């Protein structure tokens, strides 16, 4: 028989009272896979427009937390509210729609759609979020991220850095209120790491979005005042 699950040790660097309006409000969040508790977060709040870092070693539950916040998985216990919206109150289709419009996700390995070109990857993101096409928004974003000349290129024709920028563009094309980035700098050198981080922050600032970066990369710690540190279980 498996041992009983225990709470994950954590430290929230966000000071009480710092958050006036919560973009993310987590209470008594527990995630169990099989007999293993991978995440136990009694309480955590992130203010709107804040830039937060979730940091910890591999296997500490960072990705699980991001998946929970995005509504990609339902928590074993506890509640999550994004911009005041309780995720548990949303049914499957409503949760999908909420995710599409309100949450932008940058995945660790980018996961671009290889059958589509750069522009169509962004157009698909608009379509799946049930947003109007907005070609001007897409063109502006591509220009801003230096991808305009590659609009017709397929992902496999792009460099690593270009793919990274496209993944960020796709995450922000719908002007989400919450941007979740899972290990966005794990494979990058210092210069590119700083560039990607800068890009994420600029995009978040441009739209007033809350930015949450999950990483094991301690190079990023110095860039964030608000940190949630998860420890290995």
């Amino acid at each position, binding site marked *: 028989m498996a041992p009983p699950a225990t709470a994950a040790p954590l430290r929230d660097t966000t000071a009480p009272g710092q958050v006036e309006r919560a973009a993310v409000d987590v209470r008594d969040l527990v995630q169990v896979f099989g007999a293993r508790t991978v995440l136990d977060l009694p309480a955590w709040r992130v203010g709107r427009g804040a830039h937060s870092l979730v940091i910890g070693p591999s296997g500490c539950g960072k*990705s699980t937390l991001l998946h929970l916040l995005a509504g990609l998985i339902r928590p074993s216990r506890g509640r999550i509210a994004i911009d005041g919206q309780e995720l548990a109150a949303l049914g499957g289709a409503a949760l*999908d729609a909420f995710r*599409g419009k309100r949450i932008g996700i940058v995945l660790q390995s980018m996961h671009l759609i*290889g059958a589509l070109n750069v522009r169509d990857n962004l157009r698909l993101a608009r379509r799946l979020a049930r947003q109007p096409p907005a070609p001007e928004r897409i063109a502006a974003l591509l220009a801003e991220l230096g991808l305009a000349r590659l609009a017709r290129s397929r992902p496999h024709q792009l460099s690593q850095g270009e793919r990274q920028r496209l993944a960020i563009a796709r995450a922000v094309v719908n002007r989400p209120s919450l941007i979740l980035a899972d290990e966005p700098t794990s494979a990058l050198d210092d210069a590119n790491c700083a560039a990607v981080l800068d890009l994420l922050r600029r995009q978040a600032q441009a739209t007033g979005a809350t930015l949450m970066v999950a990483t094991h990369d301690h190079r990023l710690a110095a860039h964030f005042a608000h940190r949630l540190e998860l420890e290995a279980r």
Partner: protein
Amino acid sequence: MSLFGLSLAYIRARSLNAALNLLLLGLGIGTIVLLILFSARLEDRLTRDARGIDLVVGAKGSPLQLILSSIYQADFPTGNIPLAEAERWRQHPLVESAIPLALGDNLAGFRIVGTEHAYPEHYGATLAAGRLWQAPFEATIGARVAADTGLGPGDRFVGSHGLGGGGAEHGTHPYTVVGVLAPSASVLDRLVLTPIESVWEVHGMIAEEHDDEKHEQHAEEEHEAEEAAAGPVRPLEITSLLLRYRSPLGAVQLPRLVNQESALQAASPALESARLLVLIGIGLDMVRAFGLLLVASAGLGVLIALSNAMQERRYDLAVMRTLGASRRTLFAEPLLEGLILAAGGALFGLLLGHGVAELLGRLLPAGRDMGLTGLAWRTEELYLVALALGVGLLAALIPAIQAYRTDIAATLASRA
């Protein structure tokens, strides 16, 4: 970027595989379309040629052979019948009209048919040039005969013995073409029509009341060559009689009367044509089954291709969920892909079937005779398109369920 556009992009991304699926489905649909067009023309042709003919009276033998030889001009006759006996039935009170046919010779494989004006009139034939025959050894030829032989009004030709071509020529009895029939997509197109007396004279037949001595003199003077070939002078005969009943009572009584009270045979075109269609239908059914097998194979191909594609695309599917796609959207995408492939295959198949039918109708003599064309459309083809779309949907169903069940977190984690 609509879902349709996404599906097209995925199809383009594996274009070779998609092309093979389209080809297989198109071949299956095309085969069945060709069969539909062919069998429709065949049935139409059989019906048209036999329309208005209630009974065929000829020599004893196979009734189907009698029908084939007398109505469709497609088999050897069962033999000849005495004119006197034929006249007896022609005058029968149950008979409204009768058309005599006398066969025996051909022109370059086209049958020379001794008959009366009632024969082309029966099919509503019109003249493209010249006129109908008025005297022995005048001939009015069908449109296909004119096209193939290049003969026209004023030209002369000699017939060859037999019905299949290549027989001895009746060189001393040349015919003169006096008219060409307009194309009618009927048996007339490939016939040479002439007075029945022409056939009698060529084959040395005389009326029984003729004076033997006079005939011998005539034969010596004009038909020495033919007599040597045909043997002694024979009484007048014809090959068959095409009858039309005066009333429905004829259908009940006349065939039985002919078969029981004479040495002749009566055959019903309706019955024999139906038998013929059943016989042909067995062959057509086998080809149709082959076509359906191709369609089923194509469906299986689409199923395998889409299943593999869903495995390859499970990361794409998970990413689409992160972008807000619902499970229903992921379910719909492979279905749409299957439908696009099926619609493409159906379109290709329709074009292929109609294209081949048009080519056969233009290039093959038999196709031309049948009036086979790819420009005609049949209602059954709509069902075929529906079948193709159904196969596409069915083939995409399992991949669609795979997509629907994609575990986003597990998939993303597996590639993290």
